[in-house]
């Protein structure tokens, strides 16, 4: 088991190197130079050369990459040009907000997805199944920013019962905080919930055809015990594999949702960085997004190894 875990960790190293390369190179592929990118179109040649020198952008690329990796490993990702603040600090200040939003959205996704998927599987090919799956496809097809705008209009403009802007930390004022979180978390969680519902349905359908479910039925167990205890436990395993993907979708979603609801999290930071050409932040953001995804997948793989003993044989 330990060797398996170590193997997984080693396997993810090349991917992390690719992520680092992409994060680093993307900004260097800009037509002209990164310095010209930061200064915008009105900069003079002399200004560009000066900034290049200040930021050590005149060194050869491999040396720049080496320096950048060295600094990143020390926790130094440079200084934000616009915020005039170390990038690590800027990210650290906002990560709590984004995490709160992401976790809230995952909770909503699970609340929507799992019951819907189980219900659809147990009532396969009935109206309930059709309705649940149409709802799931609709949830996957809806653009979350459009959903956000519609809900903002409904709850903020028409009913005036929920705040539609800003964020309050959970520790400050719990009830107000939840009120601020509901709409953004729902918009962010719905597509993931739809995805979980489809995955749960297909995985439940597969499991309830297994022999041991028939055995359980033959033993005279109650339906509830069969489905909740025997079937769902096994059906849950494949659902865990899509957690990595869902995290990725959620992180991507925070960019747009934080922007619409004016939530001061990482998504907003990255959008600001992109609009203001703050390239140390863009670089750090790209790296952060990629590494989080790899770490999540690694954790999922390890959890999988622990809870499903069948995998260890291969």
């Amino acid at each position: 088991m330990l060797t398996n875990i170590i193997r997984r960790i080693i396997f993810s190293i090349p991917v992390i190197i690719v992520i680092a390369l992409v994060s680093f190179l993307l900004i260097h592929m800009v037509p002209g130079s990164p310095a010209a990118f930061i200064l915008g179109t009105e900069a003079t040649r002399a200004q560009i050369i000066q900034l290049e020198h200040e930021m050590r952008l005149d060194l050869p690329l491999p040396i720049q990459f080496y320096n950048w990796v060295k600094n990143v490993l020390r926790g130094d990702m440079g200084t934000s040009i616009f915020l005039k603040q170390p990038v690590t600090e800027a990210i650290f200040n906002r990560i709590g907000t984004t995490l709160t939003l992401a976790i809230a959205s995952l909770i909503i996704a699970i609340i929507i997805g799992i019951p819907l998927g189980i219900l659809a599987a147990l009532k396969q090919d009935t109206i309930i199944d059709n309705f649940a799956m149409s709802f799931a496809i609709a949830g996957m097809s809806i653009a979350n920013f459009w959903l956000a705008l519609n809900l903002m209009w409904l709850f903020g403009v028409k009913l005036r019962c929920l705040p539609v802007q800003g964020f309050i930390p959970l520790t400050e004022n719990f009830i107000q905080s939840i009120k601020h979180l509901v709409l953004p978390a729902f918009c962010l969680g719905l597509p993931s919930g739809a995805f979980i519902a489809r995955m749960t349905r297909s995985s439940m359908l597969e499991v309830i055809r297994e022999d041991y479910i028939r055995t359980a039925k033959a033993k005279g167990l109650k339906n509830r015990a069969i489905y909740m205890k025997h079937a769902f436990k096994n059906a849950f395993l494949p659902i865990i594999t899509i957690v990595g993907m869902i995290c990725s979708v959620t992180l991507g979603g925070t960019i747009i949702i934080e922007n619409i609801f004016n939530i001061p999290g990482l998504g907003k930071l990255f959008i600001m960085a992109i609009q203001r050409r703050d390239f140390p932040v863009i670089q750090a953001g790209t790296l952060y997004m990629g590494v989080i995804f790899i770490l999540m997948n690694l954790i999922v793989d390890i959890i999988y190894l622990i809870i499903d003993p069948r995998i260890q044989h291969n």
Partner: protein
Amino acid sequence: MDRLTLKDNFYLKLFFKRWKRLLTNKRVKFGGSLIIGILIVIIFAKYIAPHSPLEINIINRLKPPSLKNIFGTDSFGRDILSRVIWGGRISIFVGAVSTLIVGIFGVILGLISGFFEKADKIIMRIMDGMMAFPGIFLALVIMAVFGPGVYKLIWAISIVYTPRCVRVVRVSVLSIKNLEYIKAVRCLGSSNLRIILKDILPNSLNALIIQLSITFANSILSEAGLSFLGVGVPPPVPSWGNILSEGREYISNAPWISFFSGMAIFITVFLLNILGDGLRDILDPKQYF
């Protein structure tokens, strides 16, 4: 090689054989026919749209839906219905071309990766690395680096979705390439190229078609998202995403601007997803979820 050309209409025959089977599926019929309907509307936009999408009429600005302007007007007094119809052209064009590019690169890289083990290691590490970024974020950074524009947008979306397609094609190649009939044709002296094109590719097509229908839906959503964030299709040319983006400022007094453009995105993507599900039902019944 001459038998690989369309002389014996190999792919064409295959296509029609599958086509007949596809038309028996309810979802394919429902999704497919309505999408063809949408395509007809946007192709004949010139005759169907009641007004010009760019015609400014300041006196008539921010008017709610009425008989004259069925979807209302925006802050320049432009007719939203016409803008949504013309915007569909750009949005669906971006989606379709991106899907085509994804398909081409996905097939080439996927076949190489599945067939040649050494290339596989390099290609898949790069693809894994690219897939680690949330799609919208990667596209956003690419657009920020290269600047706005329809063709840059198409490339950004293609770059984001190619790795997923490569992976799907690769997996299907891997599952086929060690089967007996491939060994048999190899014994008969077929070259690698012939095996790839004539024996492996046709068997990967199912997986590819399903993946591309999802890619099409996602590309349209991505166009909307990027244009919404202001790095996609530059105004005044309408696209579903940038109409929605304009509507955002007027959400409290003119919600119809964003409502109808978003509805167009939703319906199109919904139909594409239904079509994709139908295709999956028929072409790959085992993998339904």
